């Protein structure tokens, strides 16, 4: 890792390994689709306690969870909001407004959603958001500590590309957010999942991590991803 960036906000970061943060034990995933289930499996493999919830009752997703992410718990959105240390939002982007605005107050909320008008339908508010979709997500959940991350790779790449910390072909995943402690906690999570975390700066730079944003959907090393984000 380089550690030589002038701008502290952008860089593959030793802070991810810092030990001054409360440890994340429980990861809650909202969304039981392709991305949610893949993340559940990856987080279990990394040693986290994992719960998955969707808009439906827990028993409706129990079978999927049991087969696709054995070891995870089929839960409810409310239970996850209560008990998880880090919550990942992995629902179709046109559905997140159905979740209550105060549900995640005080919680670290990783926005892993992508806005694709081609698959989600046109959403005027998201289309108009200069700072990207996560700024709109933050506005909907004003009390949540929103971090945009885990949205840049295809869901199966989150399965296939996890690597040990010293692996030469380990790829990077960026995190952006305005709550710097939350970003650091998410970076530590990314590291433990098997990717090199890169601090991409404030939430509004998240636009760069979206479809058509420059480094979107690229498998890059941490240094290259950090350089690409600085150059944008």
């Amino acid at each position, binding site marked *: 890792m380089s550690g030589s960036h002038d701008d502290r906000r952008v860089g593959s970061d030793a802070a991810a390994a810092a030990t001054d943060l409360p440890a994340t034990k429980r990861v809650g995933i909202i969304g*039981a*689709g*392709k991305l949610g*289930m893949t993340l559940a499996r990856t987080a279990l493999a990394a040693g986290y306690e994992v719960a998955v919830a969707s808009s439906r009752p*827990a*028993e*409706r*997703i*129990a*079978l*999927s*969870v*049991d*087969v*696709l992410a*054995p070891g995870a*718990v*089929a*839960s409810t959105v409310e239970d996850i909001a209560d008990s998880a240390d880090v919550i990942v939002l992995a629902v179709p982007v*046109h559905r997140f407004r159905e979740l209550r605005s105060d549900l995640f107050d005080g919680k670290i909320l990783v926005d892993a959603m992508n806005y*694709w008008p*081609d*698959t*989600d*339908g046109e959403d005027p508010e998201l289309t108009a958001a200069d700072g990207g979709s996560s700024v709109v997500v933050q506005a909907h959940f004003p009390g949540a500590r929103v971090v945009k991350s885990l949205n840049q790779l*295809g869901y*199966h*790449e989150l*399965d*296939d590309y996890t690597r040990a910390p010293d692996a030469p072909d380990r790829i990077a995943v960026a995190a952006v957010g305005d709550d710097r402690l939350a970003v650091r906690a998410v970076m530590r999570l990314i590291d433990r999942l098997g990717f090199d975390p890169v601090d991409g700066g404030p939430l509004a730079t998240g636009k760069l991590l*979206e*479809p*058509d944003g420059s480094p*979107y*959907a*690229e498998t890059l090393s941490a240094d290259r991803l950090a350089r690409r984000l600085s150059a944008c």
Partner: protein
Amino acid sequence: MEEREYEFGLDSFMTVTVGPDGEPIGGDQVVRDTVEEGVLAEQVGIDSFNIGEHYRDDMMDSAAHVVLAAIAGRTERIRLGTSVTVLSTQDPVRLYNNSATLDAVSGGRAQLVLGRGSAIESFPLFGYDLREYEEIFEEKLELFVKLRRGGAITWSGKYRPPLSDVVLTPPLPAGHLPTWVGSGGSPDSVIRAARYGLPLMLAVIGGRPERFRPLVDLYRRALAEYGHPTDLPVGLHTLGYVAATDEEAIETQWPYWLQTFDRASRERGWRQPTRAQFDAETAHGAMFVGSPETVAQRIAPVMRALDVDRIDLHYALGQIPAVQRRESIELLGRKVFPRVRELLASDPGDHKVMAGSVAPGEVASPVRSTHAPVAR
């Protein structure tokens, strides 16, 4: 163990190809070429010929049943179906009319794959809201399953006018029109197929196909939960291109693959496609490209690993000229598929071992599933 029956099919999206001058040929010519390809598929021993559904300038597959009926008139054995019908934006009644008529015309050879589709241009075209695709598909699938069973139908829902004691024509003989549910890997769509007791067609167009195995397990577990037989067939739709040698196949397919995915990356905001990505896809991903032996040696282990009964190969990706498309069909029918049958006969894999080991209702998850069997 009794011999397992496999289906080796082809999928066409009726892509606009280029002529000898390198320029795109006319859409009407593409339609006629497709009919010829369907006829050729039967001649070389392929089991089924299936057409997609798109509404865009580089694909002419907007009216599959018409093309399939033309093929039916010139063939006797090959099954004729859709590689996916975007049920969400079709009227299930009209789909029944077309499909039952195709079944009659072809002497009982019609089949369908129903899906939400990954292409979405039909939603604005036919006046549907993309954000409701889940609800629309659910309602229309439920209706279509009823229509396929026949008899007098009384039904009401949100997305089409109610039906009161309606009998659709022509009648479908019992057991005709095998109808599969297509899935791109969403757990919900896999469970939906199981809920209706319909066979499952998995579409894998990128990455290692073997990673879909957990979804096959999920499907069989869900079938058990819903009280259906757990050995309903599972199929795989994927991409391929065959030529005489590996080098010829790879170098012919590469520029057209690049062009196709370059367009897709601009439309969908994906990364720019690269040669490294193409090489990875052909080596162990969802592109079965090469000589007949190479492709057979790739297909057989994937079918074993996924425990599938059917494979539909999209047999030439992008604008590959008609002459080479026909060569790919010939090699698939005469060499690749027979060779895959041979390989599977000598080692069928661990067919449905998992399914047999699961008792209905058995769920180890902390929250017990309480799915009720679907009302028939």
